[in-house]
């Protein structure tokens, strides 16, 4: 491991990569602060730039910086405006915003930054411990297990979509998988489902799809419903006094310790991610707290702000575990990162650490650096960066749309791609209106090719479907996937039946 750390230090401490971390964090903070633009949209917009860097380590360093920055920026707008830019920071507004209303906005931001820092750091340390172990286990996997593992990942993402949403999420996953079959695959050397169109020959570009799924609908919704952009009650709160007291620091400490570990493991689970981790962290800390402490939750409690902030950053780091060790993204954001890596000819998976250790370790080290940058650089700059919240939307929205278009265009250098982007964006907005989750679609799309490759390889090795029965681990994983899908609706039904029983008793 020490050797790896040294390789990573060498790669990450080049001037170029250091600049990329700083730039990524700053850009992420800037854009993440804008209400309605989540890390997925930002990363999608940054991908063409990352890909043209050409160096996979540099690209991942930039994108990871953007990701961290976006989460940090999201908590800033949660605290100042009560308008979370990112779903993962919604829980931060519960106590952060009341604190800002009391005139302690500066303190709230510092607490958020410090707990994010601690959560992120702890997450990276856990990542360094668990990723190598998991990837040496993953080296035992065959294509049959990979196939099963991806099925588990996709079902877990659907299962975590929420009550009553599992079938919809599965539908989106299948649609993503279907879209991935368009074009000429490496496996068969024949175009499929291109409908005779030349532009579809190479398949649908994942950047275009990512932009269409996340950036475009968000921008359109900002236009449709202006209330969505402003949120809260008008102008941002003034930022004064960045310090918190020693007693408050002491109160935060155990919260940070618990939540960084819990958040990390929630983040490792596919489909759970930062949003769930932050809500869970908030709920757990509120239940643990006693008496006055508990009553303060929701009215500007230090603990109530530290918990979700620690948890969401630890979870962000945790979500890199399945990506870097198995090559299976657990969230929309890591799915986009996976797409970027594939475009750069790096296939994340257990072999990443042995084949290209410099990529793996450079990313880990740059996460450390990114956390420092956020704490040292972004925190003092926040009062200035927060000025972006004052940019009139009349200018902001055309620029967001323009960057979306640019992102799709630079990737392909093809104007037809732009028309496809608009078409898919409209489709995505309709899906959003009907309350369909879009992340499963993108994850399905990105995993689609790999899923089919592994499926086909196992079929060929075993001359048929026998691999399911002949490899116990494959069977076990597939059963797990089935349980994951059925469990939420089974539990909902049981809860309902129980509720009915109670009502009858009365």
């Amino acid at each position, binding site marked *: 491991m020490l050797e790896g750390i040294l390789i990573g230090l060498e790669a990450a401490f080049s001037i170029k990569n250091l600049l990329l971390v700083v730039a990524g964090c700053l850009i992420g903070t800037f854009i993440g602060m804008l209400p309605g633009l989540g890390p997925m949209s930002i990363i999608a917009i940054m991908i063409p730039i990352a890909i*043209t860097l050409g160096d996979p380590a540099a690209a991942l360093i930039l994108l990871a910086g953007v990701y961290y920055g976006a989460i940090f920026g999201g908590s800033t707008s949660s605290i100042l405006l009560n308008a979370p830019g990112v779903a993962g920071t919604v829980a931060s507004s519960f106590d952060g915003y009341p604190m800002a209303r009391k005139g302690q906005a500066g303190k709230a931001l510092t607490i958020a930054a410090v707990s994010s820092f601690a959560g992120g750091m702890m997450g990276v340390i856990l990542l360094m411990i668990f990723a190598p172990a998991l990837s040496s286990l993953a080296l035992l996997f065959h294509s049959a297990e990979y196939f099963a593992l991806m099925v588990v990942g996709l079902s877990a993402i659907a299962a975590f979509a*929420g*009550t*009553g*949403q*599992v*079938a*919809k999420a*599965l*539908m989106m996953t*299948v*649609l993503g998988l*279907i879209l991935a*079959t368009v074009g000429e695959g490496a*496996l*068969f050397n*024949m175009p*499929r*489902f291109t409908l005779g169109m030349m532009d579809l020959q190479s398949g649908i570009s994942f950047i275009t799809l990512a932009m269409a799924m996340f950036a475009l609908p968000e921008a359109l*919704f900002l*236009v*449709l*419903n*202006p*209330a*969505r952009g402003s*949120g809260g009650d008008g102008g941002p709160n003034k930022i004064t006094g960045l310090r918190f007291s020693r007693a408050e620091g002491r109160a935060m400490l155990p919260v940070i310790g618990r939540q960084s570990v819990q958040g990390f493991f929630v983040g490792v689970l596919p489909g759970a991610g930062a949003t769930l981790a932050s809500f869970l962290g908030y709920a757990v800390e509120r239940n643990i707290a006693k008496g006055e402490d508990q009553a303060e939750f929701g009215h500007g409690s230090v603990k109530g702000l530290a918990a979700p902030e620690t948890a969401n950053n630890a979870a962000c780091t945790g979500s890199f575990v399945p990506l870097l060790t198995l090559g299976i993204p657990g969230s929309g954001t890591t799915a986009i990162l996976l797409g970027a890596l594939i475009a750069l000819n790096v296939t994340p998976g257990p072999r990443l650490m042995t084949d290209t250790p410099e990529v793996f370790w450079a990313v880990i080290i740059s996460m450390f650096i990114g956390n420092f940058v956020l704490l040292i650089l972004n925190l003092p700059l926040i009062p200035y960066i927060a000025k972006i919240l004052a940019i*009139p*939307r*009349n*200018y902001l*929205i*055309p*620029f967001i*749309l*323009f960057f979306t*278009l*640019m992102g799709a265009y*630079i990737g392909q*250098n093809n*104007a037809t791609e*732009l*028309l496809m*982007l*608009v078409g898919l*964006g409209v489709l995505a907005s309709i*899906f*959003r*209106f*009907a*309350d*369909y989750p879009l992340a499963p679609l993108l994850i399905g799309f990105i995993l689609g090719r790999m899923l089919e490759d592994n*499926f*086909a390889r196992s079929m*060929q090795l075993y*001359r*048929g479907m026998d691999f399911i029965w002949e490899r116990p681990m494959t069977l076990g994983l597939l059963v797990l996937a089935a349980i994951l899908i059925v469990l939420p609706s089974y539990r*909902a*039904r049981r809860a*309902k039946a129980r509720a009915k029983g109670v009502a009858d008793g009365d």
Partner: protein
Amino acid sequence: MALDRWIALIFIVFCCAYGYMAFFTMDQDVPPFMQRNPVWPSTFPKVLAVLGILVGLVVLLGLEKPEAGKEPSATEINYRRLHEYKLGQALALLGLMVAYALLLRPAGFLIATTLFLIAGSAILGERKVHIMVPVSLLAALCVWYLVQQVLGIFLRPFPFFLGN
């Protein structure tokens, strides 16, 4: 019928068409040597088509009960309130994006982008021309410089009749 179930219905129809292609038209092109393979180009799509129809039916028939008593919040987007929203602006911006896609090559990057940004803010109700024009022009120039000179991706800056 609610919008999500209409979408499920359309999705099922889509899957049927997709499945039709997978089951009945694709296998004709498979070369003879591949026909002995256990897996054909159409195998995975066939599985997907069947899965898609099944999942679509679950949504369409409402077999999975939604969470009761969940109120959509005011800032959440809701299609039932579409008429309250600024639909005209959104559609105009979409039209503008299509126009940009069609104009980008013939008009060149600088003109197309400047016009796009000006028109975009105008659609949203901005009327301060003395700010809109310089901001848009400057932004177009900056992005062109970054993309072409720094990232090294070719973007034709001027209209087609001016060469390059």
